[in-house]
Structures are given as structure tokens and as C-alpha cells.
């Protein structure tokens, strides 16, 4: 009787594990065209403790932004910090000279040294310059990929910051202005 019960439990365990097993076939990647997205920060920030530009979410697959769901998010000053909004994704950046986002290949990415980061902000994807300007760091490409290892990732998204800044509104408040481009490699 006991053996029977143990067998039942073991079978259950096996079914559970099998149900959760995921397919990891090695197949080629398909590259998408470059998309460019521009947005204004969701909130107008006023000086003071409530000065908040808000969080802006984006999904590379559906190419949509929604109020509080997405793969990645823009937040912080000017809504210009960049981080992950979902578990199961990893974030890093690479520096590749002599390429554009359109000509950048997956091999360029995997050959370059990938620096893993928790988020990108001032100093990691834009710098600070004359007249309070915030130019993007040249030749830096942000990499978002599924899983923990880029070599086994099924989806890889390459993002490049085009511009980041702010505008003072008539209300006396400020609004962040961001533009970025991206393309994806999918198995």
C-alpha cells in the first residue's frame, strides 16, 4: 500500500516537472527592423518633494506602452533611467565602435564585453554636459535578453538612446523627453 502511494506521489512529481520543462532548442535568430520610439514623461514634475516625472513602461514585442505593465520601464529624473519591469529578463550594455543600430549584428553583441547592470542612468547611458545637457554615451548599446545567459536567450533586444532631455511647460512644471531606437533578435 505504501509503495503504491509513494509511486503515486512520484508519478505526480514527474508529471509536474515534465509539465514545467521548457524547450531550449538551438535555432537561428531572426532580426527585426529598427524601430524608433519617442515619448514624454507621463507626469509633469514640479520642483519639490512631489517632483516626479513618473514611470513609463514599454513592451518590445507588442511595441506598445501601457500604464503599469511592460518588459522595461523608464523612471527617475526625466523618466530617463532605464530598467527591467519583468522577472525572467536580464539587462546589460556593450560598447561597439563603427556600427549603427541597423548594421549591428548579433555576433557584434556576443563578441563584445557585456556589462550587466541593474539599471541605466546618468553615467551609464547618458552623460552630463554643457548647459545642463544630457547627451547619450556614443556607441553604447543596451541589451535586454530573456533568461540569465545571453548565449541561450531566446529573445534579445538591442536599445540605443537617441536623446534625453526636458522641457519647461507654461505651468512652470517640467516634462521629460526621451527618444530611443531598438531592434530585436528572436529565435
Amino acid at each position, binding site marked *: 500500500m505504501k509503495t503504491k502511494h509513494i509511486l503515486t506521489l512520484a508519478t505526480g512529481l514527474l508529471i509536474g516537472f515534465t*509539465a*514545467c520543462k521548457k524547450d531550449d532548442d538551438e535555432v537561428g535568430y531572426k532580426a527585426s527592423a529598427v524601430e524608433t520610439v519617442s515619448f514624454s514623461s507621463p507626469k509633469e514634475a514640479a520642483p519639490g518633494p512631489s517632483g516626479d516625472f513618473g514611470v513609463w513602461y514599454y513592451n518590445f514585442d507588442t511595441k506598445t506602452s501601457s500604464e503599469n*505593465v511592460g518588459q522595461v520601464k523608464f523612471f527617475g529624473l526625466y523618466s530617463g533611467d532605464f530598467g527591467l519591469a519583468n522577472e525572467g529578463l536580464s539587462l546589460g550594455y556593450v560598447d561597439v565602435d563603427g556600427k549603427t543600430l541597423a548594421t549591428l549584428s548579433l555576433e557584434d553583441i556576443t563578441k563584445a564585453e557585456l556589462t550587466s547592470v541593474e539599471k541605466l542612468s*546618468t553615467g551609464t547611458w547618458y552623460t552630463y554636459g554643457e548647459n545642463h545637457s544630457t547627451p547619450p554615451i556614443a556607441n553604447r548599446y543596451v541589451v535586454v535578453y530573456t533568461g540569465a545567459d545571453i548565449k541561450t536567450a531566446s529573445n534579445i533586444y538591442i536599445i540605443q538612446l537617441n536623446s534625453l532631455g526636458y522641457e519647461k511647460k507654461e505651468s512652470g512644471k517640467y516634462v521629460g523627453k526621451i527618444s530611443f531606437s531598438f531592434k530585436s533578435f528572436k529565435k
Partner: protein
Amino acid sequence: MAQGRLFLISLFILIALSHVALAQNMRFTLSGRVRDNHGQNLPGISVQLLPDNKYTQTDANGNFSFANLYEGIYTLKFSAVGYASIAQSVEIEGKNTNASFVMTQSDIGLNEVSVTGTKQPPDNLINIQKGAMPVTVIDKRTIELLGSRRLDEVLKEQTGIAIVNNIKGGSRSVGLQMQGFGSEYVMVLIDGQPMAGRNDGNFDLSRISVNNIERIEIIKGASSCLFGSDALGGSINIVTKHSTLQPQAFASLKYGSLNITDATLEGETPFASQRGSVNLVANYYHTNGFNTDPKYIKGLTAPPYDNYDLQGRARYQVAKTSFVGLTGRYAVRKSFMDKNFGLGNITEDEQTEKDLNLSGYFNSTFKSGLQSLSRYYFTRFQNNNSVQWQATGSVAGEDVFVQTFHRFEEQLSYAVNNAFKFTGGFGAGLESMQNDAFSVAPKDVFSTFAYSQADWTLNKKFGLVGGLRYDRHNSYGGRLNPSLGLQYHIKPQLSLKLAGGSGFKAPDFKNRYLVFYNPAANYRVIGTEILESTLQELQDEGQISEVREYLVKQLGQNLQAEKSNSLNLSFSYQAHKNLKLEGGLFYHQIIDQINAIQVATGTNNGQIFTYQNLPEVINKGVEFSFGFKPITNLDVHFGYQYLESKDQSVADKISAGTYPYNKIRNSETGETRDAKPSDYWGIENRSRHMFNFKTLYTLPKAGLTANFRINYRGKYPFADTNNNQFIDRYDHFVDGYFLFNLSVEKKIQEKLSLQITADNLFDYYHRDIPGQSGRVILAGISYRLFKN
């Protein structure tokens, strides 16, 4: 003249051009002062300016400044140990700018936190804190500040929880009572998996070391909807620490009164490029034991023991969004105690407990957002107990008890959208028990279960949580347990919650088949299914002096599973940023509660017990607490519980005039009169009034933390001494008592920590409270090694 005019025009143009150039390159200074919310200047605060990414610190007067800044908007971030980080936007518009900033202290304290933001562990998708019934969370820092070593020491300081010694289980067994529910109705889980090994239904909380605990989640009230049988009156889930992604090591040592030694070594590290992590903790604990009844008992009432505890946890990312994990715990406790009964009658009582918990899980998140967790759990608890007479060396009693439990569970979690989340699962368990004392070999218990829980945010004001669980037990059939919670946010600071749930508990092996004799306490317990035959055997052997035949006939039948219904209405009100009030009413109904009852007396005056179902027991009361921060560095918390716990059948029997409930004898005068229902005080061991008072004082700059706590437990009935089978005012009560506790901690450079703990400062002990030792003073040192 014309030359002069030309010069003036040139000068004007030059000045105008220089203004344009200056306007483009004009730089300003941004300065400010940082204070706390009582206006005190804060030195040493780290200040970050964005987007420049410049850093500075406040000076002795709390001032800081950044020079050479362009016009525009900036963000300043302030952070310091002991304070909540803040970020503020600042605008520089054509002039130097000065601003003031206020920081408040971090919300660390001894409060029992009822709200959460805690991280869900990877090996359990059920978010207990999102369940229908109210949940209290005790976090790791609070445990550290209490200076506690064992689980019972942490729990006894929580509102509405009393630590009790199960007399039937012997003085080794430290259990708890929660909102009137005894220890046997409170399920104890580790990472959501039930722990095995109950001595006569009582789970011994002192078995658990608190060193590796991330937090403790306490559900007060029926929670079978989440955990099935046994969670009839509530549950305590111990969430063990999960690995961080940073290699670190920790060592601590505490030593003091009663020769208490508590030594811990812990290490954790990531591996395989942080795809995996492993954590190991070893703990050794020793106590010399103590005597709460030195007047009548020579030697000890609570035994000395050595406890060895080893825990480990490993996690590895096997695929993109899939993790596999293993956790294990092995604990051994050995104790030895002499008991002197006078006239040279000394027993030597030896006990060894071995406790193994192993669990494996596989956690996977699918593209759709569906999360799946498969887990297998095995636990084995063994208790060897032997008692021998010192003079003769003859064995007075021997008991070997082994309980094993296999359990498989599949959990699923899916968020349909932000407002609606679903968690569900199914599984099966196999429980086996071996005990020499069973006169009938108990058969294995095979149970299956399925459950679901939905969390629905209807709108900004209303939230709804509903749950349903079905358990099927091979001896007691099926049982469905629903739960429902409705939350209403009247305004952001004030919310109400109405929650209801049901619970059940199937009678265990001991209730049905065990014949257990404790020679030290001189009592015997007989399972109901073998009551008549065992009593007959004992009578034939001449070991019985008196049998209550009417009870034996009434009880010699199958026990019913116990059932419960809980209702809870609670509120939470943030009256002021420094004052939070929480409270509520609770009402628990237990149907067919199983209680021990004396059915006979042995020739050696030992009591002989069996079990009975009581028709209905009601526990009802009020809980109230407030947290207050009168000055910057001081936290104050007060909690109170009023409880009434009564067995309805007793009240009915008094009303009906049933013997022996119809009489009441004044033990002081010896007079006897007719009993009235109002004479019924309530169930044994339940205090009407309990409160605790906690203060925490911190000096962040000096790294000092001091806390002082007062626990009060009101008088409670101990035993029926006038033999009318219910508690009345003439019975034996334990008087109310206070316990005063103090702990001081000094941190040196974040790594080294020194602690002095004084529990029960005024050395209170009582012969009827065998689990409460006198004053204990301990000194501790701990060191954490990590990369900055």
C-alpha cells in the same frame, strides 16, 4: 561727439553681447540644509545630484552645496543609515538657490507588521499575506532586536499569543495558545510545508532556532483554506532566509545565565555567474535547564539539553525562466533530566529528538506570465524517550515515536491583469507513524487536496480575496473549506477588513490508538478506539482504582473530525505619520473539539485520560494595538487582547442541572450550592486580559539600539479543584504576571555587533508555569563578513 556716440554704442553692444554669453554660461550654486522631522540638523547625510551625478555630504550643521550649476531642473537624492532615502526635484532659475529638506527615520521597530511589501520566496507561490484572514508578520530585524534564540521566545511577545506548557506532553513541550486556540490547532510550517512531530498534539516551538529566519507569518484564525487539516485555529509559517547575490559569512555567539550557549555559523555565495546560490547555517544551542518549583521539587522542572541544527538551501537557474532548488534541515536535540519525587525515588529521564526536513522544487515562468511550481517535501521526526528508576536501574517507561511525511504539490499562479490574480494547486500526502505504544498498528494516512485563491482589486476602495480548498483523507472522507475577505479603504489612511474562514482537523493516531504512560508526570492517555479494551486489561491487572463508567460508555466511540469557523473584523488607521492604530473583533467557533478528559484513576493515583468531542467551543474577543513615535529616535508599541473562551456544552449542562455540573463548592468555606451558568469562568489556561508594551530607542550615529518590553498575562484557570467538571471562581487559578525584558545592541562599522539581553529582569517564576524560566542575562557578539 560722433566718436563719443560711437564709443557708447560699441560699449552697449559689447555689454549686450557679454550678457548673452553670460546667460548661456552663467553658473549658480545650489545649497541646502537637511533636518529631521523635529527640526534637528542632520550631519553626514549622503547627497547625490542628478543628472550631474555629483556627490557630497552634509556638514556638522546639516548643510551642503553644489557649485557651478546651469539653470534647469535637478534631482537631489539623500540617504543615510537609519533614515528613509528621499529624492526631491529642485529648480535653478537665474539665481543661486537654497532649499530645506526633511528626512525621517527608517521604520524599524518592534512592531508586529500587518502590512507587507516582502518578497515572495521562490519555493512557495501562495502569498500568505494576501490571504483572507488577517496576518501578522515578524521580520528578521525585529527578531534580532529581541535577542531571541528559540521560536517560543519570539512568539510569546506577540499580542494575543501565550506560550503554554502542555502538561500532558510533559514539561519539555513548549506550545502556544493563540486567540484561545490551543497549540494542537495551530499548524507550524517551514516555507509553507508542515512540520512533523507533535507531542500529544502539541508542537514544541523550542525545537526551532530563529537564526536562519527571514520572517514569521502568523495567521490568527481558521486557515484550512490554505493549509488543510490542522490549520483549524491558525498557522505559523516560518520563512527561512533566501540567498543573496553576494558572498558573505556570519558568525555569532551568545552566552549567559543557565549556561545558555547559542553559536551560529552561516555562509552563502553565488556560483556559476550568479545563476546559482547556496546558503549553509549551523547552530549549536545548550541550556542547563531550570526549576520553577524549587520548594517541592529537587533538581529541574525544565530539562537541560543540547541542540544541533544544520540548514542548507541551494538554488540554480536551469533555463531562461526556470529555477530548481533544494532545501534541507537536520536537527538533533538531546536532553537528560533527574526528577526527585522524595523518599529516594529518583527517575532519570532521557530524550533524543531527530528532525529532518528535505524539500526540492522546480519553479518556471511561462511567456504568458503563468508561474508553475512543483515541489516535493519529505520530513521525518523521531523521538526516543526513556525513563528509569535511579535506585534500581529498572526501566519505568520507554517510548519510540517516528513520524514520516511525503508530500507532492503543484502550484500555479497567474495574474490576469493588475487587478485580478489567481493562485491554485493540487497535491497529495502520505503520512506514516510508528510507536511502540500503539496497541493497534496505525495505518498510513493518504490525503489529496486541491485549492484555489483569487485576489481581486475591484476598485481603489474595495478589494476581495476568496479561497476554496478541498481535502480528502482516507479515514475521514472529504472536506471543503472556503474563505472570504473583503477590504474597504474608506480613505488612504483608514481601511476596514471583514474576513471569514473555516477549518478542520482530523483526529490523529494518538487520539485514536495511543496508550501513553508518562511515569514522570504519572498519567496515562488512552486512544478512544481502544479505550474500553485497554481499561479492561488494566482492571484485570489490578491497576485501576476507579472508573467513570458513564463517561467510558459515552466516549468509547469514533471521534469526529474537529471543525471551526472564524470571523474577523479589523481596522487599520494611520492617524498621524507618527501614530498608527490597529484593532479588531474576532469570533471563532469550534465544533466537535477534541479535549482530554479523565475517565479513571490508577491504583498509584495516576490519572487516566481519553479524548472526547465537545459540541461547541466559542473563542471571542477584541485585539487592539498602536504604534507611536513620540520623538525621533523612539518607537513605542502597545498591544492588548481581551478573550472569552467557553465550551457551550458546559454552559448547557449547568443550565440543565446535569451532575456534576449542577453543584459548586466554595473551597474556602466548604459550602456547596446550586451552580448557575454565570458561575462558568471559561476554559483552562486562557487569560481574559493580555498586553504587551514595547519601546525601541535608536541612536544611529552611535550605532546603538536599546529596547525594553513588558509582557502581561492576566490570571487564568489552571485546574478544576472542586470536581464539578468546569472552571468556576473557586478553582485553582494562576495569578496574572508581568515579564520585563531589555536588550541593548551596539553596531561597530556595520560588521561587528555586540548585544546584551536581559529576559525576565525581575526573576519571576511560578510552579504552575513550568516553561517560564527566571531571569536570563546573555551577552552576544556577532560578525558579518561581506564585500562593501
